[in-house]
């Protein structure tokens, strides 16, 4: 129904703080774009600029090809789901959902049919006469969604909508939001700091840091080829293991003096990373050419059920290795962590990926 195009969008507050320092994102029709980043990275500000709740200091925001910088949130034809739901406390669920339509002068019978059909989709039909304070957190969340859906807007905006729910409900709602968004085919922008939500929901994932976009792409592409150390450590749980390198004529050397024996390219790499699940542990001592081999001591074992995480000291820093099922190792064991060369991520002095 609509595309969303951000061109070099900036937000400078009167205090001089630059919250968003020039962001360009193109979101194709019907796709769900997730903005993810640590708190204070500017993702919420960016969302609020798309909504029209913040003024745009520079650059343009276009919805459906039309620049909307100068028009208010009402005329942008967007709907927003807020973190604390922002339901009108004195209105019944029905009126909460109908309010936006009434303000637009939609005929009464159309409002009624739209509210009721939306309520049916969201399983809210039995709750239409309740007030928000009589609802559970999950139900309020649904009403907030319903209020957005019933308007049938060009764009959905989600501002950390699941962060007030418990873990189980969050998992359910995540799937539900994804299904709804796909069924309705409404272009969406979703802000979260939860990388799991980001990975599972996004068609396009935008990783932000300090007011800038670090990387944009499909979630799995970003996971497999993080463009910077920041992205590598932000996306993935547990985060990627990162080892600092010092160079020498013979090749990169770890902080504890272990020589690695190969390098990604001519570029001087300053940091080497590998994901916890891309490494194996072995008690054997045979030579493994073309792989990173780190002698380690196990410091702690975290069994989670289907997998276990070994926390080890290696190469002058701490690393985490995932092993399937129960771990054979115990704290204090000496073993070797092995990661294949093609699974390694190399970053230069500035933190940018070099391989």
């Amino acid at each position, binding site marked *: 129904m609509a595309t969303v195009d951000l061109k070099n969008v900036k937000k400078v507050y009167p205090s001089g703080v630059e919250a968003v320092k020039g962001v360009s994102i193109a979101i194709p029709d019907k796709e769900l774009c997730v903005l993810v980043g640590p708190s204070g990275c500017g993702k919420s500000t960016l969302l*609020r600029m798309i*909504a*029209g*709740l913040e003024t745009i200091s520079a650059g343009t925001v276009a919805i459906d090809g039309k620049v909307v910088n100068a028009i*208010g*949130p*009402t005329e942008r034809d*967007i*709907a*927003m789901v*807020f*973190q*604390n*739901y*922002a*339901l*009108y*406390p*004195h209105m019944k669920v029905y009126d909460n959902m109908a*309010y*936006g339509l009434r*303000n*637009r002068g939609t005929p009464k019978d159309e409002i009624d049919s739209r509210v009721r059909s939306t309520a049916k989709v969201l399983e809210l039909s039995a709750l239409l006469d309740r007030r928000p304070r009589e609802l559970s957190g999950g139900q309020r969340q649904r009403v907030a969604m319903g*209020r957005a859906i019933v*308007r049938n807007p060009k764009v959905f905006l989600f501002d950390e909508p699941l962060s007030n729910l418990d873990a189980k409900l969050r998992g359910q709602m995540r799937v539900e939001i994804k299904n709804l968004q796909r069924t309705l085919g409404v272009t969406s922008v979703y802000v979260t700091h939860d990388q799991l939500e980001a990975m599972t929901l996004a068609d396009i994932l935008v990783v932000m840091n300090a007011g800038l976009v670090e990387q944009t792409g499909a979630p799995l592409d970003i996971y497999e080829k993080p463009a910077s150390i920041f992205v590598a450590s932000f996306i993935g749980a547990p985060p990627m293991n990162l080892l600092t390198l010092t160079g020498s004529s013979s090749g990169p050397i770890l902080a504890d003096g272990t020589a690695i024996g190969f390098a990604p390219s001519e570029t001087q790499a300053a940091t080497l990373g590998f994901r916890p699940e891309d490494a194996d542990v072995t008690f054997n001592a045979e030579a493994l050419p073309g792989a990173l081999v780190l002698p380690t001591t196990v410091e702690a074992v975290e069994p989670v059920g289907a997998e276990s995480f070994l926390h080890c000291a290696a190469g002058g820093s701490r690393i985490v290795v995932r092993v399937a099922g129960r771990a054979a190792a115990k704290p204090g064991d000496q073993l070797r962590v092995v990661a294949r060369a093609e699974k390694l991520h190399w970053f230069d002095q500035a933190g940018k990926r070099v391989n």
Partner: protein
Amino acid sequence: MIGQSPLRTFTAHAVLILGILIVAFPIYYTFVASTHTLQTILRPPLPLLPGGQLWNNYSEALFGGIGRIGGVSVGQLLLNTTIMALGVAVGKIFISILSAYAIVFFRFPLRMTFFWLIFITLMLPVEVRILPTYKVMVDLGMIDTYAGLIIPLIASATATLLFRQFFMTIPGELVEAARVDGAGPWRFFFDILLPLSRTNIAALFVILFIYGWTQYLWPLLVTNSNDMNTIVIALRKMVSFADADTEWHLVMVTAMLAIVPPILVVVLMQRWFVRGLVESEK
């Protein structure tokens, strides 16, 4: 109240009952006096039990004594006072909710200056500004009018501050949700802010109605003609009128009648009043 012993319960109740007696006794005694003849009242001691003149006294005060207070009936006095108290209460709420709305939800030049200007008026007691206010009322020809009784009293820093504090607890997300839902400033005010302020408005109404009802100094100054008097002023005039024989039984009846409307307002709005003071509906 954890671990109450019977003795403590007894003491607590005794103190409370004593307090009620101290507060209620003068009112009861006024009521008793309003049911006796003038002769009984003037011949001490006054009996502690109501006499048999209830009907006579009340009907005389309400319907009989036209000539008493400069030809003004009690009904007219009650009407004047009601108009003034309602005008002051409604006017104060109206003005202060709008100014609080402006100060909290809009960004305009000198916003904080205006806020502090309103705030500073709290520091000025009525008596300080009563002369200039009186002069203005005279110049505007508002002496002996309801407008003159009401308008100078409706600016209220206290109510503005109360509404401001309440508005500031309304989450920003709610304001934004309304904006996204297409509610302009007026819609937001009427559809969202006003319903949410209901309990605050009710509590303020009770307080301000009584404030308006019991005004003494201002009505005394601004009303010259007897038929614009409020009941509080009239009571005063009844007493000073006749130095020989003040009709005490009728004074007492009028005093009883004067406290009925404020009591009604408190009793009828009690539920709202308490809710407004205790909780904010969010």
